[in-house]
């Protein structure tokens, strides 16, 4: 993926669907993880690995692990919270 391109919500959903096997709606992006069906902390680790692979950037692991929703994690990617590898 281009390191300069903005990751829109639909692209983020597609990435999560293919990478994690989670078919989320845009509404579920904003939901607390506790409200997502079958959500488990193992998904966060897989998500970190997926995002680093797809964006070519180091993801701030601690901030991802502290996030409470997919939208929060998406925001981390689209702000200055990441560093180029």
């Amino acid at each position, binding site marked *: *993926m281009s390191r300069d391109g903005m*990751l829109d919500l*639909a*692209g983020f959903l*597609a990435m999560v669907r293919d990478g994690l*096997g*989670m*078919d989320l709606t845009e509404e579920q992006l904003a939901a607390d993880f506790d409200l997502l069906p*079958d959500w488990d902390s*193992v998904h966060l680790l897989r998500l970190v690995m997926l995002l680093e692979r797809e964006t070519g950037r180091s993801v701030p692991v601690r901030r991802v692990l502290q996030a409470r929703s997919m939208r929060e994690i998406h925001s981390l990617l689209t702000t200055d919270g990441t560093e180029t590898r």
Partner: protein
Amino acid sequence: MNAAGGDLIGVTAEDSDWAAVREDLRRYGTAVVHGRLADWRPRAPDGPALRAVLGRDWSRYRAIGHPDIRGRYAASRRLLKHAAAAALRAEAIDLELAYGPTGRPYLRGCDQIDISLSHTDDLLLVGLTSRGLIGVDAERADRSIYGRGLARLICTPHERRMLSELPEPERNPSLVRLWTLKEAYSKAIGQGMQFRFNEFGFGPEDRRVQLNRPDGTAGAGDEWTLRTLALDSGGTAFVVSIAVYDAGMGRTLDTAITTMLDAEAVAAVQAALDAERGEWSQILHN
């Protein structure tokens, strides 16, 4: 008999011989194909041919703004549907990709084969099996994971001990292998049944790979077949892992859509239609 398939099968968007896919399904019950993103990316990204292949995924595809993710979304589904169509002796445009309650992708109405998809960089990977469940995963062989504090989240205590005893240059490649195995296994079982990655493990690659408990003892029987292969695609080295769960029903030797109907049921329906046709014929001629 290797339930996780034979060699990885390279396919291109044009002029591929899909017979190898059918042959591997017949021989092993499993086939794994790979292609290149640059080759499978649609030439007409808004054309009717792509729309026909994507089917219900078309609206999702159109909503993706990022061109790279959009291209990969289309390319991966083109490869998946063409590979599945080859296995089923069907047309790619007639197949519909759907997602089950545990997040696993499947082909609606075609439960004779299970599918799995992975893509990384320029590599697209699709696994097909008639044995039960399949998960595939690929990573660049040079991906740096070890030494970032992630091993304790990824590995069981036994695996961490195993890694620490390896010569330093072998630790990262071994961790990449373990990661792809765990991803492939997780994809096969679906997210609803996942375990933490440090709660299940795998042994070293110099012996038959089996699912282990955290202490390194065997955690499952012969129902799981797991393997890792090296792949060079376009000059880049990848690590590919495959996990296949054998549901114990044997290989389905003929996966074609048209032959999956029970022969007796087809005969009964045909007889009923013939009888009805006969009755109408009598009515119309009297």
